């Protein structure tokens, strides 16, 4: 069990890579479908022929009819997965506020994501969001810059700002009569802009905004957009407040090394048992823990601070008579 949990982070990267690469592959599949629908292979330009040949070579072993490739369409903002329509809860919330009406056929498409969020918390942010893929790579770049001696992304802001952004965005949606989150929400921006760039040509204003958020993360605060600004993160945090699956520190095997605090990109405090509603269950702290003190548990609340880890200096100074070799883990 323990060894499996340590590999969850790799599984998460696999999931993120699959989602991100799908966002790039799907526009090409759409292009291929339009070429096939036109029945005019000879009239294509050399570039279009290359795209058509490549996609055909990649998909023909699995799918014979190009129309069947329509089973997976769209992006993480809203899409179709083998006939199942899924939408981001933020899209649904924004649409309810913008149109001031309930369109139930659309609202039920967010049902499965909401249930998953109620169970697992901000799991969308850590495991699916295509922006997280780029933000985490961007965070590695910031770590290199910090290693090189540049004092970048050290600032800490108030994490309640994102809830204000959520409320203000909803009010602006009502006022201006458009779903405003579509243009500030990085996963929506990325899905759309990749499609624009590949299938239609040219980026929109969202690409500029996304680059600005990357710069913000790199220079001002670590993962600042997700932690402090993202309205979707705010919604998922609220939904996942009483999530059932959460990470728990086993105080008997913790040695107070604080690697978990360093690796947590959301700036949470696993060492003090402080996960809170912002934890996205990314399991990076589980993967980095040298004594396997962190694991998943089923509970609606975090435990209160359990004191220093029993393998750490503080605890052993206070309890010199305890034989730590009994509690240590091989």
């Amino acid at each position, binding site marked *: 069990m323990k060894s499996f949990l340590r590999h969850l982070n790799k599984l998460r990267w696999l999931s993120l890579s699959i989602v991100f690469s799908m966002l790039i592959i799907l526009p090409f599949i759409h292009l291929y479908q*339009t070429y096939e629908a036109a029945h005019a292979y000879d009239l294509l330009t050399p570039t279009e022929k290359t795209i058509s040949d490549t996609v055909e070579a990649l998909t023909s072993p699995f799918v014979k009819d190009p129309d069947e490739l329509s089973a997976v369409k769209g992006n993480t903002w809203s899409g*179709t997965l083998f006939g199942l329509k899924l939408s981001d809860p933020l899209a649904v919330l924004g649409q309810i506020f913008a149109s001031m009406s309930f*369109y139930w056929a659309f609202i039920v498409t967010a049902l499965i994501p909401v249930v998953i969020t109620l169970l697992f918390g901000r799991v969308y942010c850590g495991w699916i969001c295509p922006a997280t893929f780029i933000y985490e790579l961007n965070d590695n770049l910031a770590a290199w810059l910090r290693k090189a001696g540049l004092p970048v992304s050290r600032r800490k802001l108030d994490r309640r700002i994102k809830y204000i952004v959520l409320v*203000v965005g909803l009010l602006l949606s009502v006022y201006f*009569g458009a779903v405003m989150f579509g243009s500030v929400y990085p996963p929506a921006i990325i899905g759309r802009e990749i499609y*624009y760039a590949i299938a239609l040509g040219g980026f*929109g*204003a969202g690409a500029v905004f996304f680059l600005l958020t990357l710069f913000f993360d790199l220079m001002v605060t670590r993962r600042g957009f997700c932690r402090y600004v993202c309205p979707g993160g705010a919604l998922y945090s609220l939904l996942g407040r009483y999530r059932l699956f959460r990470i728990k520190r086993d105080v008997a095997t913790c040695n107070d090394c604080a690697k978990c605090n360093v690796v947590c990109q959301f700036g949470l405090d696993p060492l003090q048992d402080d996960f809170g509603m912002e934890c996205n269950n990314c399991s990076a702290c589980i993967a980095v823990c040298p004594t396997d003190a962190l694991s998943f548990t089923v509970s609606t609340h975090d435990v209160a601070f359990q004191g220093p880890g029993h393998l750490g200096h503080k605890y052993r100074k206070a309890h010199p008579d305890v034989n730590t070799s009994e509690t240590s883990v091989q």
Partner: protein
Amino acid sequence: MKRRSFMKTLTMGAGVLSFGLLPFFMGRILRPNVKAHAENRIPLPGALKNPEDFARACIGCGLCGEVCPVRSVQFYKNDGGFLADTPYIDPEQKSCILCGLCMEACPTNALTVTPVREIDMGTAQIDRAACYPWVDAGVCGACVSICPLGSSAIDFEFGNFYRPVVQDGCVGCGQCVEVCPEPSLPINIVSREHGKVAQHGIGVRKMERGQRGF
């Protein structure tokens, strides 16, 4: 000291907030004059009639574009204002083939599934001073032969071969616009209240432009 740190927090919060709200206003700032192209941008089939209602219902997911087999669905980018990221069709570039896939794909009520002959994207409007057959400058009939809805949408004038007349059944798919060989585009898609025959005169044009903008 406490007040100073409070002010610092407040300034920082205001900074982050304005940064988050940047794209709300970016579309406004980057927007050129939309009305210059308003005539070329028609709504999708089955779209809500009022463009303001459409902007309220559409979430900008781009599914309509991703399912379109002819790639006729374009999207307002930073020139759309609050219609940004919502779809339109430019019939001059690529017209709608009325396959109905976008209506089925749309997760919201922005596009509703509509039977082909009840779609209302507008109506074709012919400028009789620029159309070859209408000025007796040749024979054509391209628009009539391409029309997917047949003689209920566009037909030749009675007794005059090759002079096209738009009928009541036109749904405004724009295939006639795409196929029209005349560079000045005597045929165009307009909303229904503008009529099937172009009215000439500077005053008329100006008035129409003013009405159509959103």
